[in-house]
């Protein structure tokens, strides 16, 4: 009995000393470092990119954990404003109302351009149409053209596919393609445009339906679909999307991809953002079919 008590006390003391050992300042820092989580949410276009970044960064920094979720640019920015995430990915620029809301909450959203993206217009591989002008695309999506034979294709109805309205890609496509970049142009999507909740939905429908036309970030388009060449307004040169044509500015439907923070980033979040502009991180951008940015675009 006495022996048992002694053993218990000894064990207790050992545990205590072990605990004391673990609490040296450096180790405590490492320990608290273990608990550094970065929450990252937003654009579905950027989800694969953000995941690839997060995975590589976590290999470099064992003390940082990054969780990435999609949901759409609007969803990410809303989460940033509600203070549930550290970084919001967005494939469109933040709206004025959203900035106002952030200011009402007492923070200032800070913008970083972390990559560029081309929007590819996709059709079924059997569709004989290879190229469209921006005006034709606008007429197709606004409902003025509803048969493929009006743009040199077969006699088939056009089924228009689009992302849901909470997608940054949707808003960008509306402004640059449907409205041809004119701010006084109030053209809207045809009412029978199918609004699909995911990129996958669009790709699947285009893959099996020869009537369909859709659009998606270039990084997401699989090789078995046909990517159309697009001519800019007042131009007769049809350009296919690629890293070169986006960087030279000849492909007309390309845009910046953003990450927003609430207030100037500090600590681990800042280190992560700095790393995103490193050569390593920007190589990942190119590998995934997006277009790298040359230097940090600090505001």
């Amino acid at each position, binding site marked *: 009995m006495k022996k048992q008590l002694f053993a218990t006390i000894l064990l207790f003391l050992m545990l205590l000393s072990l605990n004391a050992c673990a609490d040296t300042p450096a180790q405590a820092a490492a320990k608290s470092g273990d608990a550094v989580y970065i929450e990252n949410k937003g654009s579905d276009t950027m989800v694969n990119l953000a995941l690839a970044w997060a995975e590589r960064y976590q290999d470099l920094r064992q003390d940082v954990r990054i969780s990435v979720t999609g*949901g*759409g640019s*609007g*969803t990410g920015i*809303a989460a940033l*404003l509600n203070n549930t995430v550290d970084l919001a990915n967005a494939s469109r620029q933040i709206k004025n*109302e*959203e900035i106002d*809301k952030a200011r009402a909450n007492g923070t200032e959203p800070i913008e970083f351009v972390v990559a560029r993206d081309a929007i590819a217009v996709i059709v079924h591989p059997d569709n004989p149409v290879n190229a469209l002008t921006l005006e034709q695309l606008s007429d197709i999506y606004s409902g003025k053209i509803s048969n493929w034979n009006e743009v040199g294709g077969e006699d*088939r*109805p056009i*089924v228009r596919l689009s992302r*849901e*309205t*909470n997608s940054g890609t949707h*808003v960008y496509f509306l402004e640059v393609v449907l409205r041809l970049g004119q701010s006084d142009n*109030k053209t*809207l*999507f045809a*009412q*029978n*445009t*199918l*609004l*699909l*909740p995911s990129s996958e*939905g669009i790709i*699947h*429908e285009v893959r*099996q*339906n020869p*009537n*369909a036309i859709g659009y998606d970030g270039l990084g997401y388009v699989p090789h078995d679909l046909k990517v159309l060449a697009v001519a800019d307004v007042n131009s007769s040169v049809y350009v296919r999307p690629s890293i070169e044509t986006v960087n030279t500015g000849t492909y007309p439907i390309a845009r910046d991809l953003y990450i927003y923070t609430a207030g100037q980033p500090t600590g681990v979040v800042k280190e992560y953002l700095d790393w995103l502009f490193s050569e390593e991180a920007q190589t990942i951008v190119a590998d995934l079919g997006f277009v790298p940015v040359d230097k940090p675009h600090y505001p």
Partner: protein
Amino acid sequence: MEKDLSLGEFIITRLIKASGYSAIVFVTLIFYFLLREGLPTLGEVELGNLFSTRWYPIESYYGILPLISGSLIVTIGAAMVAIPFGVGTAIFIAEIAPRWAREILKPLVELLGGLPSVVLGFLGILVLAPNLRILLDLPTGLTALAGSLLLGAISIPTVVSVAEDALDSVPRSYRDAALALGATRWQTIWRVTLPAARSGVLTAIMLGVGRAIGETMTVMMVTGNAPVLATSLASLFSPVRTMTATIAAEMGEVASGSVHYHTLFFIGMVLFIISLIVNVTASSVVFRQKKRAERVLS
């Protein structure tokens, strides 16, 4: 000992009473919340806009008519699938099937009811929609019809389960009497058993319809979500956007307190009122018939 018992009794009665009332409290709270978040819409959006035919909230077009018509047409389609197949299956299980078949069928149908709706939606995108397009020569297979067929499949287990119970509880003497009078098996089912179980079968149908109108994930995946006003049954073959899919797709994005946010709650309110009407109609029909049945029997 006796005091303990009465104390236990007291607590248990109160607990049961509380849980009974809590349902009423919850429904009232939910409705109050919907009203509080949804009614401001009437002040913020002009009625002409709210009851127009264009839904495009990011440009302040808040016409909810296409969404209401979308939900209705998908639900009607689902009812056309679920009622004949559901009631038919229930009759087969309760009246016709031999004992061993009934013992296999009933759990299987109930298993179907446990299938997650997102799985059915996935099947719809991969198998049903492409085949519908080819079979019916439609521009696209993502239509109200695809939604109706899947929602029908989702509601069938509910209808079967409740209707079968109702048919099962019809006293054996009814059937014996009908058969003794020389009625055929079909006449017995159609003229005696089914009318006797009418209130239970109606409840089953209403529960099934309620299940269909509130379903979200499947319709969001397969109906194409195009906010076009459905004007006739022909709209079954074109894409529609339902109220539930709209709320699910857009609620994540809206800033709380905005016009769009209030409008989504307003849609929720409309949905709530529609299912309330369905339920009240169903129960009033059921109650009325019960009274008549009691009169006849007495």
